[in-house]
């Protein structure tokens, strides 16, 4: 090691670490050690739930060898070679607990590796450990995890705040510099909402851009994995490695993946940015409104044309989502029956197989997961299928058409708030109606229903001192253009605040 010291290397961006590794200013082992030290010092955040230091150091040593070999042959190792990452517990990682933060998968160690982690490791990335999340990715506050709550590194008073959810562990780990980047998944906003709550960047790609194989399924027509990072450039680098066609996921798109980092030109002159009037909600805090207006001004200053647009079916997105997602979840989660993997309840004398299923599922699933399975069971049951499920799928088609009409009219990207509020206190929603918690997803869920790419970018602190983000929504398969818009917003906003270290 020369030049840079590894002290504080855990705070680096992926891009900075890549450059330092290639220039031999730091080794992957030293960079990994810096992150492992930060990880162990960050236990108060409860972000990591299964630490894998042995795997990390072995991967780091291999990365150093690969970086050296590339250097000697005059080439470059992949961008993620030697980069320490955290992996959401939803991704199956061979031989490492992968529980989806559920007691029903207690003790489950997959015999296979998800496509996403296979690709990341193929590019030389280092896994530090598995990250906390809401159980089966169902939640917006990371309070439904079998491992307990994740605490947001941002703190402004005595209260412990939520990092958002479901990718709350990923968001907290990235914001607190316990890794350089983390994988997340997003079914209704689970990358973008926690990214906004913790002042980091998170992108949900177009449905089909990233393989879902080996990612524990929640709602298969909505789930999509993506990166959570400290900058837009890092998101571009990270997403590049995750993306691409996978024969093992029939819905993964057989499309060429463009060079996302090369697309970050910072030039959006003449681009049309749509501002959807339906996203101006009643009772929206003035601060969110002002943040949005500032974002509009930033895009305008960068030479974009601002266009008022209408997405008339927006208000029906949440109710449609809360029919479709539980319906798909009730089918997907039928596999947890105590037979093939995970938890099986202790049985009483005379209990048959039905009692085994019922007791196992009652013990293994938490209350929110149970509720969603039952809602899904109800809306799919005979006599209600058309009234709820088919109607919701028709409304979904209309929501998608709203976006198609906007894009057909020449809109390049759509700018909206990312969340209706900044981070709230853990436990503050404990007595709320389940529906109140669902409102967290109001700005993000339309994007999943329409299958579009969406990115949350941190823009400012609110008057309490908590980060707030804006969301940009792109055309299908145009992550490259979307990331460039996000890059412009990031540079204009100049958000550099970090949480004060209290943990």
């Amino acid at each position, binding site marked *: 090691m020369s030049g840079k010291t590894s002290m504080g290397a855990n705070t680096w961006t992926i891009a900075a670490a890549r450059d330092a590794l290639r220039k031999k200013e730091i080794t992957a082992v030293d960079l990994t050690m810096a992150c492992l030290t930060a990880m162990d010092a960050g236990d108060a955040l409860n972000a990591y739930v299964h630490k894998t230091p042995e795997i990390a150091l072995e991967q780091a040593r291999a990365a150093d060898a690969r970086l050296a070999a590339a250097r000697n042959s005059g080439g470059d190792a992949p961008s993620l070679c030697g980069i320490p990452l955290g992996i959401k517990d939803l991704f199956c990682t061979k031989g490492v607990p992968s529980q989806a933060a559920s007691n029903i998968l207690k*003790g489950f*160690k*997959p*015999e296979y590796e998800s496509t996403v982690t296979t690709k990341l490791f193929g590019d030389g990335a280092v896994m530090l450990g598995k990250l906390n999340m809401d159980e089966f990715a169902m939640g917006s506050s990371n309070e439904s995890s079998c491992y307990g709550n994740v605490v947001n590194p941002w703190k402004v008073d005595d209260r412990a705040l939520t990092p958002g959810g479901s990718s709350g562990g990923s968001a907290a780990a990235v914001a607190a510099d316990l890794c350089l980047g983390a994988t997340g998944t997003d079914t209704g906003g689970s990358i973008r909402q926690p990214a906004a709550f913790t002042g980091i960047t998170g992108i949900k790609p177009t*449905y*089909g851009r990233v393989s879902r194989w080996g990612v524990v399924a929640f709602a298969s*027509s909505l789930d999509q994995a993506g990166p959570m990072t400290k900058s837009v450039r890092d998101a571009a680098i990270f997403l590049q490695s995750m993306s691409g066609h996978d*024969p093992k996921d*029939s*819905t993964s*798109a057989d499309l060429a993946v463009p060079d996302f980092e090369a697309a970050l030109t910072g030039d959006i002159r003449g681009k049309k940015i749509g501002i959807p009037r339906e996203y101006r909600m009643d009772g929206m805090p003035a601060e969110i409104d002002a943040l949005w207006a500032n974002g509009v001004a930033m895009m305008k200053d960068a030479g974009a044309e601002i266009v008022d647009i209408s997405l008339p*079916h927006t208000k*029906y997105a*949440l*109710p*449609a989502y*809360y*029919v479709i997602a539980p319906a798909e979840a009730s089918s997907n989660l039928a596999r947890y*029956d*105590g*037979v*093939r*993997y995970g938890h*099986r309840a202790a*049985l009483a004398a005379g*209990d*048959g*197989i*039905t*009692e*085994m299923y*019922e*007791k196992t*599922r*009652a013990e293994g*699933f938490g209350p929110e997961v*149970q*509720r969603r*399975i*039952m*809602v899904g*069971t*109800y*809306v799919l*049951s005979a006599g209600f299928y058309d009234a709820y499920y088919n*109607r*919701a*799928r*028709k*409304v*979904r*088609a*209309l929501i*998608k058409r709203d976006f198609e009409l906007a894009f057909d009219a020449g809109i390049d990207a759509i700018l909206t708030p990312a969340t209706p509020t900044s981070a709230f206190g853990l436990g503050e929603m404990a007595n709320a*109606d*389940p*529906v109140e918690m669902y409102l967290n997803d109001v700005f993000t869920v339309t994007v999943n229903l*329409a*299958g579009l790419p969406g990115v949350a970018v941190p823009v400012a602190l609110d008057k309490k001192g908590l980060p707030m983000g804006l969301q940009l929504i792109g055309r*299908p398969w145009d992550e490259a253009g979307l990331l460039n818009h996000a890059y412009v917003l990031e540079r204009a906003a100049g958000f550099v605040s970090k949480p004060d270290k209290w943990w």
Partner: protein
Amino acid sequence: MSIDIDTARKVAKLARIRVEEAHLPKLAEQLSGILGFMEQLNEVDVTGVEPMVSVTPMRLKRRADVVTDGNIQAQILKNAPDAREGFFAVPKVVE
């Protein structure tokens, strides 16, 4: 549509989740609240709209109908709560 206690019991049964009798009223209330929220969908005119079946209009890839894996019995049984003699073991099934 409001969910009564009998319906909640039936849904729990269909979902194969044991719910204690004492918890059924609360469950019925919560399910009713969620379904009430969904009722908004009835405001939308969906006449002539086809239900969305895929996010992107693409034909799913077909693969050749051939065996591509197998002989991994030990791996498949590795995580089973109860595996015996190469099989998953379950309680007696008596109808």
